[in-house]
């Protein structure tokens, strides 16, 4: 039996909008935040759950934790119906909401951990062992005595991840764990999650709109858009389906004619000594960079990943705006 199982899951919100009829007349409108999603996740998997803003990612996570009741469909986590047995399930899951914190704002970080200790009734030895491990791997040692409000976003996020893991949850849900983090913090969080999944076998479901998170962590990715599951499979497959391209930006020593003689790359545009080349997201950048460096006086370069909006837009034809227009 899969560890997480969704069958035609739905969540419909009724929102009141001010109608045209008058100041005090309000019309009800339905928002289908999650519109019939089915998937299964096995124990020990690490899955990326991606999609543009408003796609329904957070709503799905909230239903998985039991804090939102589905409007339709079926949902089981570890055989439990989350909305009905939220408290029982809570002992077995860990949750991190990137934009929110579970930590006590005005008190030192370690006070929040003492709270987790009591809340999840973690045996003392186990608690100390887990805390030591998190402190070491997430480099929290010097932060334990610092009030949470004084932590940087990256530090707070690491503190939150530790808080979600002290009771050895079988599954960890992360809703945008890297949002707003700097590159170094992102890398540290990703490394920790990879280790958690491989060495402890914790099932991880990760929501993000940063494709790099997925690339570095997840072999399986699910794409949702407007409440529907658009893709479920390997990341490479997503690029293939989306025919997405990455962008290579090169800074040359001086202004030169467009680079058109490097196989596999397509010239996009130039701006003085800076040029942009596109290449398929499924191929490696290394040989391309080598080929450019061999023929041109290269000073600097950077690679930009295709963003999810673009991939999805390509996958289903047209941009979001265009699709929206065509629906009218």
């Amino acid at each position, binding site marked *: 039996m899969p560890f997480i199982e969704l069958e035609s899951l739905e969540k419909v919100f009724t929102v009141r909008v001010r109608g045209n009829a008058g100041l005090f007349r309000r019309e009800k409108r339905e928002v289908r935040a999650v519109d019939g999603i089915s998937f299964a996740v096995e124990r020990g998997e690490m899955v990326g759950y991606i999609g543009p803003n408003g796609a329904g990612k957070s709503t799905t996570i909230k239903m998985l934790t039991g804090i939102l009741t589905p409007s339709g469909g079926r949902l089981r986590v570890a055989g439990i119906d989350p909305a009905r047995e939220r408290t029982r399930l809570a002992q077995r899951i860990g949750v991190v909401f990137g934009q*929110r914190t579970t930590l006590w704002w005005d008190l030192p970080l370690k006070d929040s951990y003492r709270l987790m200790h009591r809340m999840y009734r973690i045996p003392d030895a186990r608690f100390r062992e887990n805390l030591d491990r998190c402190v070491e791997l997430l480099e929290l040692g010097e932060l334990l005595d610092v009030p949470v409000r004084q932590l940087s976003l990256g530090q707070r996020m690491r503190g939150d991840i530790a808080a979600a893991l002290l009771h050895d949850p079988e599954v960890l849900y992360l809703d945008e764990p890297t949002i707003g983090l700097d590159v170094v913090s992102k890398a540290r969080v990703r490394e920790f999650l990879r280790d958690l999944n491989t060495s402890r076998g914790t099932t991880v479901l990760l929501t993000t709109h940063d494709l790099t998170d997925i690339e570095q962590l997840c072999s399986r990715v699910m794409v949702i858009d407007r409440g529907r599951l658009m893709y479920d499979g390997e990341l490479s497959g997503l690029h293939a389906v989306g025919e997405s391209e990455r962008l290579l930006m090169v800074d040359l020593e001086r202004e030169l004619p467009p680079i058109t003689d490097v196989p596999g790359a397509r010239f996009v545009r130039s701006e003085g000594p800076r040029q942009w080349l596109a290449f398929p997201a499924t191929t490696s950048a290394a040989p391309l960079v080598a080929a450019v460096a061999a023929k041109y006086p290269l000073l600097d370069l950077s690679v930009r990943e295709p963003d999810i909006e673009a991939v999805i837009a390509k996958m289903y034809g047209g941009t979001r705006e265009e699709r929206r227009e065509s629906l009218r």
Partner: protein
Amino acid sequence: MLRLYATVAAGGFRRHATYRVATAAGVFTNTVFGFVLSYTYIALWDERPQLGGYSVDDALAYVWIGQALITVCGMMGGGFEDELIERIRTGDIAVDLYRPADLQAWWFSAHAGRSAYQLLGRGVVPMAVGAFAFHFTLPSGPGGWLAFLVAVALGSTVGFAIWYLVAMSAFWLLDGQGVVQVAWLGGLFFSGMLLPLNVFPGALGEVARMLPWASLLQVPADVYLGKYVGWELAGAYAFQGCWALVLFGAGRAAQAAATRKVVVQGG
């Protein structure tokens, strides 16, 4: 579970203890208001001695008890409802809800810790200053103080229950400010913060003394002043206890309804 809530209460205490400047400012404000109200009451009791059955010394004690308990019993706001409403409004309440703990018990524990701090940090000093400046009525011995503290604890519990119920409205209204303002006005008037409830004339006074807000200041003050003798004291506690139970129950019902249809905001 009790250890969890004890930890939450301890956190509530220390959380507020970190704000020393706020505490000092609060003590200053309460003391200033204490003086202003004292001189007003002295003038009033000069005109009408034994008003509401209080001597002028009783009335002055009442003033300073009110200043000491203002944040403990939540006569003009429970002190936590703004935070709770804000969490509901922004959706941060999601974090509180997925925990294996009861929302109301959690916030009550935090409130208890905070109130204990407010009583020590903001209650004792104004009370002592007032006693020194005005020589008002004091309870008869340690037994009187103890009886008073029990009434304060019950009053603080009723105060929590009122403001919790107010905060729950935010699940439906999202903008809880209207309800908060009505509750604030009601609390100010019916708790006896402006004038003791036994000064209120006729039916208005009778009704006011039956409402839950009477538990916050009027009952603790009358216990302090030794107005209840023998079984009357048990009756006063029972009055507070009943309101605590009823309002806690209403808060639970609201919470259950809210979490059943939960509208947790935001992403």
